[in-house]
């Protein structure tokens, strides 16, 4: 499976476009992580627990999108876009979408 956020895949030939695929996930943080982050808020810098949380969420959404593409019989996804939104206190949604294609 090859993915790209460009419209064309250089070095490959796209034989068919299969349509839109997407994957999304809603993640909330837990209290333990929040406590450490509260301490870190005093001195500033990266909140590693939160970074991990976001990475996990992105990975999950991405894998869901790939699964959907696989079901359609695609072997590539082009023009992939990520979109994030904070929905309520402490929870955010991550959406990944793209166009499933068959490449030769």
């Amino acid at each position, binding site marked *: 499976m090859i993915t790209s*956020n460009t419209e064309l895949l*250089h070095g490959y030939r796209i034989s068919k476009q299969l349509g839109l695929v997407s994957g999304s996930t809603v993640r909330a943080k837990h209290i333990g992580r929040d406590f450490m*982050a509260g301490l*870190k808020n005093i*001195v500033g810098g990266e909140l590693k627990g939160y970074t991990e949380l*976001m990475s996990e969420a992105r990975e999950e959404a991405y894998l869901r999108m790939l699964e959907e593409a696989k079901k359609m019989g695609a072997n590539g996804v082009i023009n992939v876009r*990520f979109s*994030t939104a904070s929905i309520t206190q402490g929870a*955010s949604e991550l959406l990944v979408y793209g166009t499933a294609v068959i490449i030769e």
Partner: protein
Amino acid sequence: MMFLAFEWLALFSSIGLAFFSSRWIKHRHVQQLQNAEQRLARISLSSASINCQQTLGLVGTELVISLDAFTAFSLWLRTLLGGNSAGANELLQRGRREAVIRLKREAVALGAKGVMNLRFEQLTFSSGERRNQNRFSIQAYGTAYL
């Protein structure tokens, strides 16, 4: 009276400790960024799509950063007076540099020459909750190419 003096001393010294450690964290981060940027200078970046030999695939990273309490306070003052908040601006720029460095590391792992079609995405957690303010999520993604 003695006890009161001790309490004041404890308060000021802990504020001072927090202040200097936040400065130190910032200073160390900037140095780490500079070192990493020098090492990864050969990986080229572009926000446009490039005519290349081969596409290697999507790469993406994100990180969550927070303002220190002192910069947060100066930002709060800025929201009253208006104008440019240098501290907050500097933090966001550092965050983006860090995200780009991680992106480049992923590209190196794939054996890429560079990353094209680079996009930044940002998210603030400040949805009403006070403790969530001054935290930013920075995301960078692009396509690694050869």
